[in-house]
């Protein structure tokens, strides 16, 4: 019972802080919007996407009505999650520097509960950002969702959030300096994002690059979101959900272990 209220307390803390720091939301949205508007428009005018099968079997850039901006929208959603959720782990390092983390660790709660409280808190922050991004997408970038696809979209991206917050907390619990975290964080995000097919179709890639894409779990989230939002995808929705969930599971297991061993 106290584990449950403890979980609620940790989650509530993140939500209160997030709701107070509105600038954080704005900051979190600047990057994806820049990508969509500048990169999406700039590159979109130059590329014709080939090899993407739409529901009706025609190429994008032709009659399917999918612009490059729309094409990268799911990938940009994932980017928002990658940055927002991974860097959530940075707060752990800040907390370590004062005795605030001790106050939480000395409470009669399992480290696992503390871990999940943080994960849920981070994912909640992130889901708010994603919902805003989707609303902007619907208003300005031609994104259409039905209630059913919206629900599945949020579910899938929520699973990714759990994976990435866990990854961030793992790194945060192992490190002592914010600078070090920044370095490792960027180092981790870079391949996860660029090798995910967020910016390009994966069907006609050279085989070495395709291999990288296939082993990157984020590729499957991008693919699943693209299927749900645009109706185009390569791996199949079941596989997309399965791989994303497996990624989350592995990261949660690793994260709880790292958290349990965390030294002050």
């Amino acid at each position, binding site marked *: 019972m106290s584990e449950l*209220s403890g979980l609620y307390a940790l989650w509530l*803390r993140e939500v209160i802080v997030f709701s107070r720091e509105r600038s954080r939301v704005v900051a979190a949205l600047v990057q994806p919007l820049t990508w969509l508007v500048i990169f999406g428009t700039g590159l979109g005018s130059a590329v014709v996407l080939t090899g993407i099968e739409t529901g009706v079997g025609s190429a994008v850039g032709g009659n399917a009505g999918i612009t490059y901006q729309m094409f990268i929208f799911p990938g940009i959603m994932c980017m928002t999650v990658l940055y927002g959720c991974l860097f959530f782990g940075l707060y752990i390092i800040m907390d370590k520097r*004062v*005795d605030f983390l001790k*106050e939480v660790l000395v*409470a009669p709660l399992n480290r696992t509960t503390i871990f999940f409280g943080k994960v849920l808190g981070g994912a909640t922050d992130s889901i708010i950002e994603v919902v805003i991004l989707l609303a902007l997408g619907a208003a300005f970038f031609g994104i259409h969702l039905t209630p059913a696809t919206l629900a599945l979209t949020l579910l899938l991206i929520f699973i990714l959030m759990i994976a990435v917050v866990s990854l961030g907390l793992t790194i945060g619990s192992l490190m002592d300096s914010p600078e070090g975290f920044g370095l490792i964080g960027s180092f981790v995000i870079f391949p996860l994002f660029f090798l995910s097919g967020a910016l390009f179709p994966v069907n006609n890639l050279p085989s070495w690059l395709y291999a990288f894409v296939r082993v990157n779990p984020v590729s499957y989230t991008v693919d699943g979101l693209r299927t749900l939002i645009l109706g185009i995808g390569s791996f199949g929705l079941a596989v997309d959900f399965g791989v994303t969930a497996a990624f989350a599971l592995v990261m949660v297991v690793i994260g709880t272990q790292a958290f349990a061993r965390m030294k002050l």
Partner: protein
Amino acid sequence: MQAIHAIETPVIETQGLTKKFDKFVAVNKLNLSINEGEIFGLLGPNGAGKTTTLSMLATLLPPSGGSARVNGFDVSREASRVRKSIGFVFQDPSSDDLLTGRENLYLHSLMYGVDMRAAQKKIDAALELVDLTERQNERVKKYSGGMRRRLELARGLLHEPRILFLDEPTLGLDPQTREHLWKYIKRLSTEKKVTIIITTHYMEEADALCDRVAIIDRGKVVALDSPANLKKGLGGDVVYLSFRKPNKPNLAAVKKLRCVRNVKREGDRVTLSCDYAASQLQNILKAIGKVESVESRSPTLNDVFLHFTGKEIRDDDGDAEGGYHERMMHSGNR
């Protein structure tokens, strides 16, 4: 063995408790036994190992050797049960400064599973105690250092733990609040039988509050008794004598007096211990020669501290600021 001691089972018991940081021994084979409802003081110079000891007892640091039981539970093997039994007020700031004072307390009571119907009342009472009712809805970021301290104290008491660790709880508090808290701490121990382990650099605080104190230096206990006994142990009153050149103290003569012990000379100052100094002063003065000034008083815990650690506590002798800065730097370096 066990059966004999069953009547007064200690609430906290350590055996050979040791903490090493790499090769540095911060706590060295500590044996302590603290009874229920006792207010137990841990005194010692900066870096003596007080915080490290408390952290091990609170399961925040794993011991490198030895064992400790808190409320009957082993700190290594039954950590979560230990944590259920204790409250901790940390030496360094530990409140969440993005939240308001009240939110800090509310989240704390959630984490400790305080019954929610009772919680709001308890929070009100705790805020009242530390005089923060009016500022409760402001963010902690805007609090002064002393106000933060008071909030952290309120938080440590909120879930009514059986055992309370207070690591320099009154550092930076104004005299009113400090007296207020002393009273409250006393009440907790007498009325609710809460066992309290407190570290402090204020000797008058240890004297006023503690049933027993342990003086530790470099990770080892160098003295352990009630403040009264410790003071008695120094041997009577302390006499300070000062000289002006060319007069010299006749130390040999004064050492011959039966009542005199512990004669120490530092420059033109002589300190000695003497039973019933008031009635012996005439003899001392006769023996020692012409003095500039003389002062005699009963020993304080400060004298005891000085005696055992060879250093006077900086906070207490007019150089408060230097001591404080040094301590802040020390904690910042960790």
